[in-house]
């Protein structure tokens, strides 16, 4: 075997990855441009809003509740090492709104929604329903992709906001029942230290993560391979890609918003 063979393989892999990044970017740009060109399918948008937003509330709420509670316990345990137990309310609030609310909310929605979108659109592709849409003079990007991407981009900030509130409540419940905080003092401490930008930055992250989740679900669904295996692979790829991109985007946004 030639010594250059591993390098050639590496080169092919890198080129393949760059090509994939390019395809995803073009797909995302195409989705956005359809927003400004009629027709717009309002009924499909409302249906997607229900599926992505409303029906994700339980999973996002429960995740936030337990995370807020666990966060309060961890901060209390860490803070007690240098007599800083009183920071629990403020750190729970800041941690939930800036990081854990949007990131965990995004990841949970990625697991629930990106998989469901990729499986649905992938199945439509292998059963020729996408071709049928085209022959019925309906653009699949407008009918399938845009409503889902728009709904996720608008729904995620709302889910993150609700998740933030529930997460802070989780910390509050643990604080007053397990850590012997005074209820009024806990709430006052939370309100005093929480700034509007903490919340707003988390909501902006939520919108970006929503866009990522739905775009990945639609992209992999539209490019699904044949048969059950093809749809399964598309579903798995959508969730993995959405999760990794959410974490990467979170770092970039955190740098943008909070670096000194």
């Amino acid at each position, binding site marked *: 075997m030639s010594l250059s063979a591993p390098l050639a393989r590496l080169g092919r892999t890198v080129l393949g990855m760059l090509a994939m990044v390019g395809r995803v970017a073009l797909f995302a740009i195409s989705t956005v441009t359809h927003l400004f060109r009629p*027709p717009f*399918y309002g009924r499909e948008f409302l249906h997607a809003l229900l599926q992505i937003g409303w029906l994700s509330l339980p999973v996002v709420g429960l995740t936030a509740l337990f995370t807020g509670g666990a966060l309060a316990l961890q901060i209390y345990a860490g803070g007690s090492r240098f007599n800083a137990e009183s920071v629990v309310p403020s750190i729970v609030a800041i941690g939930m709104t800036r990081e854990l609310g949007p990131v965990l909310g995004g990841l949970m929605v990625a697991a629930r929604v990106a998989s469901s979108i990729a499986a649905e659109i992938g*199945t*439509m592709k292998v*059963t*020729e*329903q996408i*071709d*049928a849409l*085209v*022959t*019925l*003079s*309906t653009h699949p990007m407008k009918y399938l992709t845009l409503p889902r991407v728009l709904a996720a981009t608008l729904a995620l900030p709302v889910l993150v906001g609700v998740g933030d509130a529930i997460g802070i409540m989780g910390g509050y419940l643990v604080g007053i029942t397990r850590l012997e905080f005074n209820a009024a003092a806990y709430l006052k401490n939370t309100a005093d230290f929480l700034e509007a930008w903490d919340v707003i930055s988390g909501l902006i992250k939520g919108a970006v993560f929503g866009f990522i989740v739905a775009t990945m679900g639609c992209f992999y669904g539209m490019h699904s391979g044949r048969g059950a295996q093809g749809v399964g692979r598309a579903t798995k790829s959508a969730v993995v890609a959405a999760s990794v991109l959410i974490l990467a985007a979170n770092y970039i946004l955190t740098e943008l918003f909070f670096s000194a």
Partner: protein
Amino acid sequence: MIELTDVHKAFGSNKVLRGVNLSIPRGTSMVIIGGSGTGKSVLLKCILGLVTPDSGTIRVDGQDVNTGDRDAFLARFGMLFQGGALFDSLTVWQNVAFRLLRGSLKRPKLEAREIAIEKLRRVGLKPEVADLFPAELSGGMQKRVGLARAIAAEPEIIFFDEPTTGLDPIMAGVINELIREIVTEMGATAMTITHDMSSVRAIADNVAMLHDGVIKWTGPVAQMDNSGDPYLDQFIHGRAEGPIEAVR
């Protein structure tokens, strides 16, 4: 009139169409036959623009299919897909009236529903079926719904992709008769792809055989049995021996 001139299409190294020449006169029913994997569906999708040919021209009434208003072009077509391709999330009547509920052919919802029910009746389905979902229907009923959707907007050209695949012989016969009746009464140009010889005899005015990426034989269905073409003879008689290589 649909005219294909020297149409080529390859997927990677697999050359599926190697210079297809075919013309389908207006108001006639052309059936394309050929073995599995010979590119019949690709040919049909090339005409619709679902697959872009590598070279060659496809014209419908003299106009290149890749130029002009795409919506207006597609509005002239109806298509019955092999598996029905019904939208799972929509009820039967919403599937049938899909084109009438949006786009340039949009009608009021009640009117669209009435048309859908009328088309369902035309393909032998009762109005009660209208509010069911596709998953609640048998394979034969799904084909009928697909047929109703294909004719809902009264298209000038109708494509049928393997219309009888997966159906029992009686249901296949019913679908064949329906297709023949509908095409005749609408005066539409029809193009069917199939390897079911009973469909060919029931539906076709003209037949074309696709093999090795080219049209091996084309002519009126009445001349099919006496064509003298060894490929066609082997295919229509289902013989393992002959110029078409049969994988055992």
